């Protein structure tokens, strides 16, 4: 906050009937801490999205908050975090647009629980969709306040005032002008409003819809961008924890005496947490090597092959949704039936930055710099672990080095905070790559069984879909099937009696990658049996205009060669819908029949995400999705034995590399009738099916399991024609 304690401010405008209920602070104190400037708080009310609500202590009905300072700079406070998805830049653009200030006048404060409004977390491609409208409303309201002040200041009629680049002026006489900075100086104006303020329409946009260099670019190319592990505090200790060899192991005995004898080493044994700490992380690592721990480990024959039967056996209760027509009749009336099973393995998040946390406790207040997607839930967790009240825990989120759904657990924060409490010194916990793999909440292995049928006119007549462990995201029917049912057994979160041998959780578009792999493979299987072009088959079987739109655009850009598969072309197609955004992909692949290796030469993707805030940023996310998607499609598969994770680094767990990069072309399909939709996840969902369908077109074999490794491709080739 800026200092202006001496200034006489004048709260000219203040509209909140129940201020004291909304704010935990004394009103006058709060106004003082804000300093001078214009402050706008927005409450989303009914518009608040299901799942994004549930707020608490920080003004708990406040969803967005911005300040225009005396220097004319605008600060946006958002509980969202920047982990590469570019939301820092797109949110700044939105505010600049509705405030009419230059993009460069915006400062972002993100993911700091002391300064930002409560937020559930950054995931689900929700920042732009749900935080965006609140922020734009706040910005629009601030602009209205400024124009009102400008009218008074210039003694001009309010309806003649216009704003541009941080200056208010009179439309007929531009020499009558005053800057925002001048208007805010020495005053304090606080506004709290609902979400109804007028926002600019798409046609008026000058900042939104344009591409800007990422706000974080300079810091990130100079090495000055700070991540949680880059925090350096005087007297800080680096901690290494004793870890079990397997998730199902229990500690029998531990001997830390040899470690404790090393100079400068602190040993902590506290409630299951066994750690060695030192001012030099390498010394802590060496000390860890001297800890003797014996573990009891149950036998298990659960592994990456046997897991699928296990899941189907464990999950007996399914929940049906989207039930239409009559499945038995649909089956009877179908002229061709198709019954297939699809398998998908465990996949790691493997962000380049492992989970990291730096914690300091001073005067009864904990400050934690966390690599996290969920600062506010982490605040509650840390408070509970320390026995502190939530107000005494501050989570600061520096830049996050990739999340993809994996940085929502917060164990490293609890470890760092506890160790800081026990040792009385600042502590950094930075997981090693092996710890990162071991404690990852993997994308769950899953099984999908589909029985589908077509009628004599080449229309989908039956769709009976059963998904185990992946949930229904991406399973929703976007084709017109009169007899339809989707049954889900267990979700991607694992849950209470989880059948998984380790943690599972959200992984970029949770469940959708698996569901679209199965669903869009099945669609191609039906098209091939009917000897119909797979594009034509899709267009014939859907009435969803946005889906048709992206399919046509991608076909055009790709140069789709019509004809039934297999056609020896190696071209593939898959499409879907995620986070309100439609995507259609086409690919060209080559199969080395001798080695089974797949080479993806080219991928074109068309995306309809409604209004586009930052086209270049959106394309960056699409490219990232496509590149990352090739990992789960071709190579990534966690190997394990019971609760022991066998892949613990990048030697055996292969993520996409430069040499596997196809030529990528991305197209944003214009659709200004739909408000901005998600962009960080949709373009990854079709990659599995896309490549599977292209392999089928190339060599006439169908793969039913991800990843499609050379060995699996060779197997499928060997069975060809059986």
């Amino acid at each position, binding site marked *: 906050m800026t200092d202006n304690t001496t200034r006489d401010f004048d709260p000219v405008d203040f509209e909140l009937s129940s201020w004291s209920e909304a704010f935990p602070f004394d009103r006058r104190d709060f106004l003082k801490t804000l300093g001078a400037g214009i402050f706008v708080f927005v409450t989303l009310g009914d518009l608040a999205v299901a799942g994004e609500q549930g707020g608490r202590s920080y003004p708990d009905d406040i969803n967005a908050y911005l300040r225009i300072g005396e220097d004319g700079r605008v600060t946006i406070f958002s509980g969202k975090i920047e*982990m*590469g*998805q*570019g939301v820092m830049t797109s949110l700044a653009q939105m505010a600049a647009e509705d405030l009419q200030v230059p993009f460069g006048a915006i400062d972002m404060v993100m993911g700091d629980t002391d300064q930002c409004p409560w937020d559930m977390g950054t995931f689900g491609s929700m920042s732009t969709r749900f935080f965006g409208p609140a922020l734009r409303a706040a910005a629009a309201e601030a602009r209205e306040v400024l124009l009102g002040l400008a009218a008074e200041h210039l003694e001009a009629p309010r309806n003649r005032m216009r704003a541009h680049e941080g200056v208010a002026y009179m439309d007929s006489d531009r020499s009558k002008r005053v800057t925002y900075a001048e208007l805010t100086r020495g005053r304090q104006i606080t506004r709290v409003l609902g979400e109804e303020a007028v926002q600019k329409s798409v046609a008026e946009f000058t900042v939104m819809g344009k591409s800007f*260099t*990422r706000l*974080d*670019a*300079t*810091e*990130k*190319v*100079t*090495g*000055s*961008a*700070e*991540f949680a*592990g*880059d925090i*350096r505090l005087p007297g800080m200790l680096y901690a290494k924890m004793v870890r079990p060899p397997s998730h199902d192991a229990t500690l029998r005995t531990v001997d830390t005496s040899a470690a404790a004898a090393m100079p400068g080493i602190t040993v902590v044994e506290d409630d299951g947490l066994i750690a060695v700490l030192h*001012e*030099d*992380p*390498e010394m802590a690592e060496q000390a860890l090597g001297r800890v003797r721990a014996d573990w009891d480990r149950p036998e298990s024959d659960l592994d990456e092959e046997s897991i699928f039967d296990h899941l189907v056996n464990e999950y007996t209760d399914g929940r049906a949704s989207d039930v239409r027509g009559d499945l038995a009749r649909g089956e009877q009336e179908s002229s061709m039936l198709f019954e297939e099973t699809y398998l998908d393995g465990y996949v790691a998040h*493997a*962000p*380049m*930055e*492992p989970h990291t946390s730096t914690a300091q406790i001073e005067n009864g207040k904990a400050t934690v710099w966390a690599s996290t997607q969920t600062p506010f839930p982490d605040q509650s967790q840390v408070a509970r672990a320390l026995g502190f009240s939530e107000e005494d825990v501050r989570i600061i989120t520096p*830049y*996050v*080095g*990739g*999340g*993809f759904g994996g940085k929502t657990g917060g164990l490293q924060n609890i470890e760092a905070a506890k160790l800081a409490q026990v040792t009385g010194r600042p502590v950094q916990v*930075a997981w*090693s*790559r092996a710890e990162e793999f071991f404690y990852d909440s993997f994308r769950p292995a899953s099984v999908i069984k589909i029985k589908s049928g077509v009628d004599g006119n080449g229309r989908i007549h039956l769709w009976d879909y059963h998904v185990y462990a992946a949930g229904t995201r991406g399973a929703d029917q976007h084709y017109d099937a009169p007899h339809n049912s989707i049954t889900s057994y267990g979700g991607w979160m694992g849950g209470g009696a989880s059948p998984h041998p380790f943690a599972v959780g959200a992984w970029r578009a949770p469940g959708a990658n698996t569901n679209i792999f199965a669903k869009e493979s099945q669609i191609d299987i039906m098209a091939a049996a009917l000897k119909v072009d797979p594009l034509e088959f899709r267009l014939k079987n859907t009435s969803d205009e946005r889906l048709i739109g992206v399919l046509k655009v991608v076909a055009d850009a790709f140069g789709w060669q019509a004809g039934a598969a297999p056609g020896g072309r190696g071209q593939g197609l898959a499409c879907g819908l995620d986070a309100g955004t439609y995507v259609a992909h086409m690919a060209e692949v080559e199969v080395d029949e001798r080695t089974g290796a797949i080479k993806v030469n080219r991928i074109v993707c068309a995306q309809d995400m409604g209004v586009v805030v930052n086209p*270049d*940023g959106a394309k*960056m*996310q699409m*490219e*990232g*999705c*496509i*590149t*990352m998607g090739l990992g789960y499609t071709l190579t990534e598969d966690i190997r394990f034995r019971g609760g022991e994770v066998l892949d613990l*680094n*990048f*030697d055996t767990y292969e*993520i*996409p*590399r*430069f*040499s596997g*990069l196809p030529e*990528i072309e991305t197209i944003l399909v214009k659709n200004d009738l739909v408000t901005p939709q998600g962009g960080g996840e949709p373009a990854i969902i079709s990659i599995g099916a896309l490549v599977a369908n292209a392999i089928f077109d190339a060599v006439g074999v169908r793969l039913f399991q991800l990843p499609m490794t050379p060995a699996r491709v060779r197997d499928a080739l060997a069975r060809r024609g059986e």
Partner: protein
Amino acid sequence: MRETIEFTLNGEPVSLDTDGDRILLWVLRTDLELTGTKYGCGIGLCGSCTVLVDGEAERSCALPLRAVRGREVVTIEGLAGGEVLHPLQEEFAERGALQCGYCTPGMLMNAAGLLNGNPHPSREEIVDGMEGNLCRCGAHKRIIEAIDAASKRM
């Protein structure tokens, strides 16, 4: 064993009185507080920790401090010439060849090493030269384009 190790770091002489077996990555990140060089895997598999040693890209996680005695080390903090960004840095920033930015210092240093040895690499040579650097966000396409653009300006 403690010894005195002298080398040049980002153009300045450094003298450290410490154990020469210590790993360069951690000495940079702790004693020298140059945190731009990142840990990603610790065993030479990801390239996040890449620095230049006498102009060549090296993995600082696999390099004992003793190995840089008398040599010239450049980290991401020293890639720019003062306020003036290196063409690679400019191209990475302008072309959005980064997302989370965690792999970025290593990518830039590896690319700088690549261009030192081969000022005008072909696309294949860029792919080959960058193959050992991992990026989970999938910024690969733009990284290749940025390196290509920078090489044409240099």
